[in-house]
């Protein structure tokens, strides 16, 4: 592998493919007890492997800089960020503390941190994830390095922030004339930001092409698989799932639109101890769901989507509102001790490992929901076998423990447990976001198949818009605990009307080089704290359409039977002119043409 100056390459691979090790090898910093066995890392004709520790230390962070994921964990919690930036500068450039401070503030300005002088004194815990990531970028650029390695740097951020940060990074690096290596598992990042793509598989580079060539069609089998899995995420018309485009709920045997779940005026406030302020996590939210239907709750982290799910399940006590499920009231922790409700709602979680008791066998895990239903031994075993079979786990694995199987399979076990009690509703709380592209595609497919077979309803909670587009019939977009737009999924993806929805959709990085991302409607900044909600329009600080004084009060507008938006009039007129439909549509067309 090689990199020229001012070049941007993407090193793509799934977990375990060795991409991080490779990126660390470049710096000769392999985590113990690993060792570099052979080979060479040549930098300006010097083999980094042969350099002494001191020489390497001088290079690291100076000529070759790394940006890492989990930015808050990477910063020393006990030092101000200013000190941390200065330390690196002083160490490498040997300048005085005063000069370093000046330079650090300039860097903070460069990475667009507002009020850099004050932020210089801030501690990492006072920063949001996006801010911390900008600080990390500032550190990495402090010594004008020749190579910057971004190691999955944005995977922890929300899509809107991810797009902003990557954009910023790319611009800064190019301005400084450095080279940039993106280490990522997201082909979208590669498609939008890299000049060249290298695919890693089992520790080997299996494909190395210019970005445009790669997305036109990789040669290597694995690369192909990876690309198609990623595309599957972005399009619903791949493979043979075309029947879903009709958007008719499957096997809707009852009267049409039989309301299964009805949530009205749900409010959840978290009191802050020692203060009269409250966190307004969920603010007057109403929606409904029919059997066999999928509703997606979409939003950035902190938008309240997970809290809604937890209120539904009684895992959080709602502040006010009403939840009806199968004509019974929900919202109490004890609700599910009611034999009629027992097992009727199930949950699939984001972190499959945390969702499974490590001390139980797969069989025990899956059978747990049935044990309370007092099904007799034979029926129980049969039901368990059935659902295990349905999620594609072989019976011989039934006596294994969760830590003996892969993450994708763990998620399958979670799904098996969810369906074993024959639920009417499954809440899918970010079920795929922790998974690699291929596993993610498989799980999505499985979920769709299950809905088809069992006509279960899904409440799909996610910030992964491509997955949402793929699976849901209806979408509700949440911002700061409020639904700002909801309705038919296709319609919303095609012509979102709320400025926030526009910004959100435009920030999705689709894995294609041929479709252009509509950056004009990107959102600025980050989601504000839900403690002190801005008065008036909650988006006014970030709105791409905002003018000097936007004091308009948003109102609820029914655009059609199945499209409701909560926004101010002025915005609606502006957004009506924007058409981002081609972003997703073009992508689908392109994907289909490849197929």
């Amino acid at each position: 592998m090689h990199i020229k100056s001012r070049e941007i390459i993407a090193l793509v691979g799934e977990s375990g493919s060795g991409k991080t090790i490779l990126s660390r090898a470049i710096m000769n910093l392999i985590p113990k007890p690993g060792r570099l066995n052979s080979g060479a890392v040549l930098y300006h004709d010097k083999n980094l492997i042969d350099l002494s520790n001191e020489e390497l230390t001088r290079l690291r962070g100076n000529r070759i800089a790394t940006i890492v994921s989990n930015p808050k964990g990477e910063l020393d919690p006990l030092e101000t960020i200013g000190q941390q930036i200065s330390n690196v500068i002083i160490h490498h450039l040997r300048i005085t503390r005063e000069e370093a401070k000046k330079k650090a503030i300039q860097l903070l300005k460069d990475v667009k941190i507002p009020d850099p002088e004050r932020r210089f004194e801030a501690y990492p815990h006072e920063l949001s994830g996006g801010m911390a990531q900008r600080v990390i970028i500032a550190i990495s650029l402090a010594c004008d390095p020749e190579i910057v390695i971004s190691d999955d740097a944005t995977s922890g951020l929300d899509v809107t922030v991810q797009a902003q940060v990557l954009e910023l990074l790319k611009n800064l690096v190019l301005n400084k004339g450095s080279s940039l290596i993106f280490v990522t598992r997201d082909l979208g990042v590669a498609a939008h930001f890299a000049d060249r793509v290298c695919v890693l598989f089992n520790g080997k580079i299996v494909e190395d092409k210019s970005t445009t060539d790669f997305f036109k069609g990789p040669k290597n089998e694995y690369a192909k698989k990876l690309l198609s899995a990623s595309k599957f995420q972005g399009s619903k018309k791949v493979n043979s799932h075309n029947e879903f485009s009709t958007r008719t709920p499957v096997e809707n045997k009852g009267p049409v639109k039989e309301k299964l779940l009805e949530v009205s005026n749900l409010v959840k406030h978290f009191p802050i101890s020692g203060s009269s302020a409250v966190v307004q996590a969920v603010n007057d939210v109403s929606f409904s769901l029919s059997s066999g239907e999928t509703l997606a709750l979409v939003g950035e982290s902190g938008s309240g989507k997970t809290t809604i799910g937890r209120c539904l399940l009684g895992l959080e006590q709602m502040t006010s509102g009403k939840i009806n499920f199968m004509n019974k009231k929900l919202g109490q922790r004890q609700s599910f001790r009611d034999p009629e409700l027992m097992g009727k709602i199930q949950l699939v979680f984001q972190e499959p490992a945390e969702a499974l008791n490590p001390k139980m066998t797969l069989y025990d895990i899956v059978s747990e929901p049935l044990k309370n239903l007092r099904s007799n031994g034979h029926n129980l075993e049969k039901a368990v076998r059935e659902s295990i079979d349905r999620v594609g786990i072989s019976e011989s694995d039934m006596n294994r423990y969760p830590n003996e199987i892969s993450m994708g399979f763990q998620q399958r076990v979670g799904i098996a447990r969810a369906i074993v009690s024959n639920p009417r509703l499954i809440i899918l709380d970010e079920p795929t976001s922790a998974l690699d592209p291929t596993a993610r595609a498989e799980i999505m497919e499985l979920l769709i198949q299950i809905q088809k077979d069992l006509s279960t309803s899904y409440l799909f909670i996610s910030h992964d818009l491509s997955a949402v587009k793929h699976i849901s019939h209806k979408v509700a977009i949440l911002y700061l605990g409020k639904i700002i737009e909801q309705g038919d999924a296709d319609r919303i993806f095609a012509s979102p009307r709320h400025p926030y929805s526009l910004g959100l959709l435009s920030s999705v990085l689709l894995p294609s080089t041929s479709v252009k991302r509509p950056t004009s409607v990107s959102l600025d900044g980050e989601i504000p704290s839900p403690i002190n909600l801005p008065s008036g329009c909650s988006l006014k600080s970030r709105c791409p359409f905002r003018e000097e004084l936007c004091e308009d009060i948003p109102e609820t507008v029914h655009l059609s039977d199945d499209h409701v938006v909560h926004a101010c009039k002025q915005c609606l007129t502006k957004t009506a002119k924007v058409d981002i439909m081609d972003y997703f549509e073009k992508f689908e067309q392109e994907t289909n043409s490849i197929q």
Partner: protein
Amino acid sequence: MKRLYLFLGKRLIFVIPQLFGITLVSFLFLQLIPGDPAVLMAGPFATPSVLENLRAELGLDKSLFEQFLIYISNVLRGDLGNSWQTTRPVAEDLLQRFPATLELIVLSLLLALAIGIPLGRAGARLKKGVTRRTADYYGLFAGALPDFWLGLVFIYIFYTVLTIVPAPLGRIDFFIIPPPSVTGSLLIDSIIDLNFAAFKNAVGHLILPVVTLGLINAGPILKMTQATMERMLDEDFSKYGALCGLPEKVIARKAFRNSLPSVITIVSVLFGFLIGGAVLVEIVFSWGGAGQYAVNGVLNADFNPVLGFVLVSAVFSLVIYLIVDLLYFYIDPRTT
């Protein structure tokens, strides 16, 4: 600054009910110990009427609840009652004995820190080698040794055989005039008094008990330092430091700074434990400390000293925890 006051205020609000609870529980608990203080006090010759008078004098004829109220109101006035064994006010006794214990504990913990921290740091930074081994095994061995026995071994070696330390009989040879008591610490008082003979003598008496407790308590400090620092070196920010090209020394310093809260915690826990737990070593060296006073009280149904001791050491522990919290507060900006 406001953050600090708020923080201190919050802590102090918890202190009062806690002290009350501790006093109440110890009061009731001690009542369960068999033995009638009046009988013990009056001696075997006392007639029933003498006993009755004595009981009335001590308030023993009142209900438990009334007795407790009386005790509490006395405590609030600084009166901890009398010890029937020493026939002196407990407050006065404690005022003499606590400094003895504190001097011993503080010096021991300083020694323990001086051993534990460098070894722990070295142990965490090194993966192999003699230092690492020493650090690993020191923690294990120190935790296994009974301190009272180690004290005896030291006495045998250094006093009986080598005769290079003074007899294990308290804090100072009594043909030496002790300095006037200002702080209660003989070392400090003798310096204030410029009495170097007393200082030298007190140091001689301190050496063995301090070394005994210091060596043993260095174990947990070492373990904690090593374990936390190792964890901190594994944390992302340490790895990121390496990625940024910061030298190993700087990274180790950061990791150590981040381990400080745990180290401070273990020291405070040891301190709290030693206020009563040093009693074994105090006994071995006839130290005359507070722990000895309390243990003796329990064994002889002399309750006021025990209550007084529990109360004072609870206050001490709370003060220590407060100091610890303040240290956290200064070390870690996240504390609220």
